[in-house]
């Protein structure tokens, strides 16, 4: 991944990269351990990482070694041994030993963690019991005083190989515990910091985006509401006067009107009223389009909404001689939405259906739960987890009117569109009702489309997502008929 943002997972210890001894251990703790081992077993210890860094070593130097290091030749020889030991190839986890020209020995054991070697522990120098005189290899070093060497030799740490092995095993066991807790502490602290950083980054990004969006929204809001307020005021004020004065004329306040005069004034009144409704719908629509309409969301039982909407439009249907029915099963899941807006959707659809249905026809409103699993693509990952939540409720508003040709079905939802322009004149209405329906349904994350009805008519199909996966407490089914 070349994403700059992404933190290096290996650096976090979350990746697969090798671990380093120097990262895992606390040096102070290491020195403490080395010191106590030296105290108990009298043996010097040194811990070296794979990269050759010495992480802890005994502080006391054997007097013999100190003497050797006083002479340049001794210092050279001693340095050579130490670097040999540091670089010694250790193949088995048992470790290996290495001799020194003083007769002393070093024991080197690998430090293993998670199946890999990350460093080594070096025990020594210690003298095997067999060495009781100053060896020739030591006397061969230039500047070494044999008498002093003989005097200091007994002060060196003594151990048998068996003892050295026990001590080294103990050392490795203690180290393992330290490494384990060190590893945990390392991961914890790194993870902690990385998480905080990541959260901070995410929050800052979101904050910046929100701030921007908020500012823009505020600006738009201001423009929009100014515009809307102006328009509605400017248009409505004169209209209110027209309505008021024509009402007064009809009421005979300005004197009795003749038959035709009364007819004309009534037409003026009803057309003005229509115009007012058109203005209100326009305002509604523009609010919906700008997304500034307030939605009060709650769990809504769609059956009740349908019954209410139907009773609102029932008088129109009855007057026209159209039968109106509503059917909703009792176990429908709830919809998360604004009940008032949903009612508006079905009032508009009901009105529209009645409008285009001739006398003697029927408008049926039917709700049901949809088996959406059939719709979900099988190739989408996680289907088994997501499908049960994709429950939809479908409401079909079917009429027996003239129907809508297939090619026209999408356009019907455009503002001011009407299949046959003359029908606006014939049936009245603004043509805005359906575009409002579409926007309201979409604001509920639903869809609306049109199908044909048999043998004639149109079916408006609204699909709304159910709010919860679990079934709500069963209610009584709704079945109403207005005729």
């Amino acid at each position, binding site marked *: *991944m070349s*994403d700059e943002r*992404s*933190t290096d*997972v290996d650096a*976090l210890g*979350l*990746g*697969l*990269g090798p671990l380093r001894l120097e990262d895992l251990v606390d040096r102070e703790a290491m020195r403490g351990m080395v010191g106590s081992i030296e105290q108990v077993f009298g043996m010097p210890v040194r811990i070296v990482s794979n990269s050759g860094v010495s992480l802890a070593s005994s502080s006391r130097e054997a007097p013999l070694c100190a003497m050797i290091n006083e002479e340049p030749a001794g210092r050279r020889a001693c340095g050579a041994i130490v670097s040999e030991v540091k670089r010694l190839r250790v193949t088995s986890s048992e470790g290996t030993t290495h001799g020194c020209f003083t007769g002393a020995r070093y024991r080197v054991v690998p430090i293993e963690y*998670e*199946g890999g070697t990350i460093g080594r522990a070096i025990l020594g120098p210690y003298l095997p019991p067999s060495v009781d005189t100053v060896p020739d290899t030591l006397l061969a070093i230039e500047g070494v005083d044999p008498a002093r060497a003989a005097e200091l030799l007994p002060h060196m740490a003594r151990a048998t190989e068996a003892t050295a092995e026990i001590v080294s095993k103990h050392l490795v066991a203690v180290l393992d515990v330290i490494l*384990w807790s060190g*590893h*945990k502490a390392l*991961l*914890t602290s790194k*993870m*902690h910091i*990385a*998480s*905080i950083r*990541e*959260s901070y980054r*995410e929050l800052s990004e979101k904050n910046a985006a929100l701030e921007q969006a908020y500012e823009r929204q505020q600006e738009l809001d201001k423009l929009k509401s100014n515009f809307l307020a102006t328009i509605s005021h400017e248009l409505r004020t004169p209209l209110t006067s027209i309505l008021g004065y024509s009402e007064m004329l009809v009421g005979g306040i300005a004197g009795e009107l003749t038959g035709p005069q009364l007819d004309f004034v009534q037409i003026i009144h009803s057309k003005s009223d229509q115009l007012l409704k058109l203005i209100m719908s326009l305002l509604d629509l523009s609010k919906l389009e700008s997304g500034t309409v307030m939605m009060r969301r709650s769990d809504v039982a769609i059956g009740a909404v349908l019954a209410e909407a139907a009773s609102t439009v029932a008088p129109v249907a009855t007057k026209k001689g159209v039968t109106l029915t509503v059917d909703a099963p009792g176990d429908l899941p709830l919809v998360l939405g604004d009940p008032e807006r949903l009612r508006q959707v079905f009032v508009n659809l009901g009105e529209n259906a009645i409008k285009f249905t001739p006398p003697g026809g029927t408008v049926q409103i039917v709700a049901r739960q949809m088996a959406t*699993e059939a719709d*979900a693509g*099988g*190739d*989408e*990952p*996680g*289907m*088994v*987890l*997501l*499908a*049960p*939540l994709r429950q939809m409720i479908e409401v079909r508003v079917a009429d027996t009117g003239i129907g809508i040709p297939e090619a026209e079905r999408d356009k019907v939802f455009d503002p001011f569109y009407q299949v046959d322009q003359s029908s606006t004149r014939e049936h009245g209405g603004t043509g805005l009702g359906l575009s409002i329906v579409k926007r309201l349904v979409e604001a509920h994350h639903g869809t609306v489309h049109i199908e044909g009805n048999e043998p004639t008519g149109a079916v408006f199909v609204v699909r709304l997502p159910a709010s*919860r*996966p*679990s079934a709500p407490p069963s209610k009584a089914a709704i079945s109403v008929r207005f005729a």
Partner: protein
Amino acid sequence: MQLDFASREISIKLVYYGPALSGKTTNLVALHGRAGADARGRLMTLETQDDRTLFFDLLPLTFRSKDGDVSLRIKLFTVPGQPIHAATRRLVLQGADGVALIADSRVSETQRNADAFLDLRQNLRDNGIEISKMPLVIQFNKRDLPDIRSDEELARLAARGKEPVFRAVATRGIGVVETFVCLLWLTWRSLDQSHQLSRKLSIDGDDLVSTAAQQLGVTTPFRELIAARMGGRAAGAAPGGAP
């Protein structure tokens, strides 16, 4: 994935994802219990509070091929499921070679399972990976509890999905090895396709996964083992298209 030619070692990172308390840690504990002494590393549970994972759990597993020639080193992580640990989940997920989603079978958890899945999908996307490209296994855990989604429903949905679905009772170790072995198998196959592992190391993926299964105490051939899945067309065919 990391490939060390010299030591003939393949390192793979697998992540157990899922909603809070679905049983991710329990899965790791069960695997740890099943793994032979040679295979299992120490299970590290990082910072827990009331048994809830705060950072992650890590179980290293090492499987050696039959002849001992190739080592397959697995680092198995869990993420913390609680919503507040979103950043940690994204971090732990980085560099994952395969993911198991551990879901809680109870009907009441349906939403949270789906949320966890969507969270996984988004976090992968943020890391530049499409979930359809990620080896994925789904486990429905806690089959022992009442009010769970029915076998019939899971089977029906799983049959339509691509990824293998396993049922499990992690607390009793049921279904745990199946889930893991299947994920290992899918991951191996995907890595083999992108990195030609079997050709480069001249090993057989089936053998490797088989020995891994054996080291988890499984005696049945691994293909029979992962046949316990529901659905999972993805795990059906062998590489090269053999049935």
